């Protein structure tokens, strides 16, 4: 059992890291497409309608815009707007001084600098005199940003360049020993880490040009640009994926195959790193088929779309090229499908059964039970819920649909709760939150928002859970209209133990330094409830040193105040509640008093 837990937490960890990486890319896919289309259409001389002026856009977009956006987004994920700004500033340091697009560098510098800034802020924030916040905010970011950009320029940039050079050397070596297909084992992972352009344009294209000059065509042009492996993975997601990755895959597949924008499928692999095996298998197959069937291109196919490939295919090599691309797609599809399907079944019968039992149990209660480790917090009720958030992997599609569905249901039922959607990684832990996720994201959502109430659904669009949720909230509003009838004495009698209610002659709330107002309000609400229930025990707010140490006092406090109370008194009776005003226990206390 313990091992089981560990295993799943490692899995969650890897998945989380993958989501983090893809989270930096996802919001920027639009920009990547803008660049991809510009390149596909207008690139000189290989575009469909070459245009030398528009061509000027392509390189800065790829080398500056995209890494800066990624650094910005990466920073934002760590520390909101300030993180975003410093992430972009620091990323520039990695970009300047190389010709390769520094996606990987941006993915490191963005979050890293935001994290540093956060640490710095934490250390200094409370030392800033009021009125100086603005100066501090701007200058701390400015100074740290400058330092990090310089650091990135002199330290990180060379490391990145060295890294991609090693990848080049590896590929180069494999090509020299004529084991061409094996080169894809290095190329595919490097591609996913956004080294695709470094490898494609940096190594393969120059070598390919030499070869093409001699024999009229080269397979090397195809090794990185082959859209087959990416296509296969995306098709597998279309059929066997889950949630947003499934629903966004068809569009991505079209962009990959016809647009040749490989960047589009990298996030999918980052989300589930084992899929790199599918990409490798596809790549190896493709290159093998190209070599055997006499495929090859006259020039570089950039971007790597099927159209570009056919456009620059050497005479007589159309068949080899097509079969190579399709073969790569089929193999990577099969491998990816196996990985995705195996993952879906979790492969572990025990875990599967446990899951089944748990969901059966929770269904009989009409409410999803959080897992055992969070059992204490599961007593939260619908009464505390202030908003509903649908969370999905990227916050792109499925959660928005689910949210609008529930919003609609709420509207019809007259429930006025905000329903929004977001990506799991953007969840903020707060009280009064109901988070709705797909089953497989529940773990991650719980890590992000341990205090929120959780409901998991199998399907965002047609889940019976929605109607249960609506019913629960509806019941609640009806109850609130008539608070007298709300008391349900039968409800969980075990919550209050060890209290001798017969001895209680006075109920007290404690007024202490930071809780004057809330104690006043709690006293008023409680005595109101007592009056309505026809109970006569007096209710008073007192200072902590005003009590007699005697069991005739029943003191209702928050957990924080209980400690201090215990230091002073031995015999008074104490009940702790999380919320002095609205805790469920309060009603039960009223019921038990005289």
């Amino acid at each position, binding site marked *: 059992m313990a091992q089981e837990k560990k295993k799943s937490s490692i899995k969650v960890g890897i998945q989380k890291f993958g989501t983090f990486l893809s989270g930096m890319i996802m919001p920027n896919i639009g920009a990547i497409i803008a660049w991809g289309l510009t390149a596909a259409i207008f690139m000189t001389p290989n575009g469909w309608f070459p245009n030398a002026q528009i061509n000027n856009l392509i390189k800065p977009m790829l080398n500056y815009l995209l890494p800066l956006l990624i650094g910005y987004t990466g920073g934002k994920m760590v520390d909101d707007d300030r993180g975003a700004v410093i992430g972009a500033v620091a990323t520039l340091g990695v970009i300047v001084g190389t010709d390769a697009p520094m996606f990987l560098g941006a993915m490191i510098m963005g979050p890293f600098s935001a994290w540093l800034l956060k640490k710095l802020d934490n250390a200094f924030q409370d030392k800033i005199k009021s009125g100086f916040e603005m100066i501090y905010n701007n200058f701390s970011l400015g100074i740290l940003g400058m330092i990090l950009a310089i650091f990135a320029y002199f330290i990180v940039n060379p490391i990145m360049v060295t890294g991609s050079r090693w990848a080049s050397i590896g590929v180069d070596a494999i090509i020299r020993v004529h084991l061409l297909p094996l080169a894809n084992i290095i190329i595919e992972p490097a591609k996913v880490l956004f080294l695709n352009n470094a490898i494609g344009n940096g190594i393969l294209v120059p070598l390919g040009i030499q070869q093409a000059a001699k024999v009229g065509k080269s397979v090397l042009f195809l090794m990185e640009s082959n859209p087959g492996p990416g296509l296969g993975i995306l098709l597998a997601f279309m059929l066997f994926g889950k949630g947003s990755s499934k629903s966004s895959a068809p569009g991505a597949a079209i962009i990959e195959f016809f647009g040749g924008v490989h960047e589009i499928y990298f996030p999918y692999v980052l989300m589930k790193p084992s899929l790199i095996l599918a990409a490798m298998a596809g790549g190896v197959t493709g290159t093998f088929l190209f070599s055997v069937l006499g495929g090859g291109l006259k020039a570089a196919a950039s971007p790597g779309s099927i159209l570009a490939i056919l456009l620059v295919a050497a005479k007589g090599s159309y068949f080899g090229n097509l079969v190579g691309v399709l073969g790569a797609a089929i193999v990577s599809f099969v491998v990816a499908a196996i990985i995705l399907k195996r993952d879906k079944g979790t492969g572990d019968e025990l875990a599967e059964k446990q899951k089944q039992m748990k969901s059966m149990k929770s269904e009989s209660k009409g409410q999803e039970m959080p897992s055992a480790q969070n059992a204490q917090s599961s007593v939260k009720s619908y009464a505390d819920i202030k908003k509903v958030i649908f969370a999905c992997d990227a916050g792109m599609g499925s959660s928005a649909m689910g949210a609008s569905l529930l919003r609609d249901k709420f509207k019809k039922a007259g429930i006025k709760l905000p329903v929004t959607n977001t990506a799991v990684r953007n969840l903020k832990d707060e009280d009064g939150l109901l988070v709705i996720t797909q089953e497989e994201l529940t773990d991650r959502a719980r890590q992000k928002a341990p205090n929120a109430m959780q409901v998991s659904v199998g399907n965002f669009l047609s889940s019976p859970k929605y109607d249960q949720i609506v019913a629960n909230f509806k019941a609640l509003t009806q109850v609130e209209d008539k608070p007298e009838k709300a008391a349900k004495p039968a409800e969980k009698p075990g919550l209050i133990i060890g209290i001798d209610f017969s001895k209680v002659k006075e109920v007290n709330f404690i007024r202490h330094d930071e809780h*004057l*107002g809330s104690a006043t309000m709690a006293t008023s609400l409680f005595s109101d409830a007592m009056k309505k229930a026809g109970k006569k025990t007096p209710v008073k707010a007192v200072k902590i040193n005003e009590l007699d140490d005697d069991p005739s006092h029943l003191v209702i406090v928050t957990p924080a105040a209980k400690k201090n109370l215990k230091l002073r008194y031995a015999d008074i009776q104490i009940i702790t509640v999380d919320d002095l*005003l609205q805790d469920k226990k309060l009603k039960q206390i009223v019921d038990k008093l005289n």
Partner: protein
Amino acid sequence: MKLEKSMIKLNQDVPTRDQAIRMAGQLLVDGGCVEPEYIDSMIARNNDVSTYMGNFIAIPHGTDDGKKYIKKTGISVVQIPMGVDFSNPDDDTEQLVTVVFGIAGLNNEHLNILSQIAIFCSDVSNVAKLADAQSPQEVIDLLKKVGK
């Protein structure tokens, strides 16, 4: 419009609701939002129709006649941790108030912040947070969260 720190008075202890209203009104006067006459109009309005909103808050403001005393839109906050009863003297129900919002509104400029206050205070535990707030900034920060 925004809440100003100088318009927030914490930890006040007042014996009557009129005094609580006067205190909220005086903050509006000191903040340059209204003429002193506006305060009387606030008292009049509350005698007319109570500005007790439930959930331990009250939002005293002037009558229609009192509008001519408004110089600019403003909102003041008075925190009364020990509470003050806003019910009519001859009424035996208790209308305890711990947070008083004094309102002077011109051209609906205050509606935005008022709706924030309304949404925020519709949850009594949020009111408790306001009633326990230790600094004007905390009050501002609490209310600011509503918009998000």
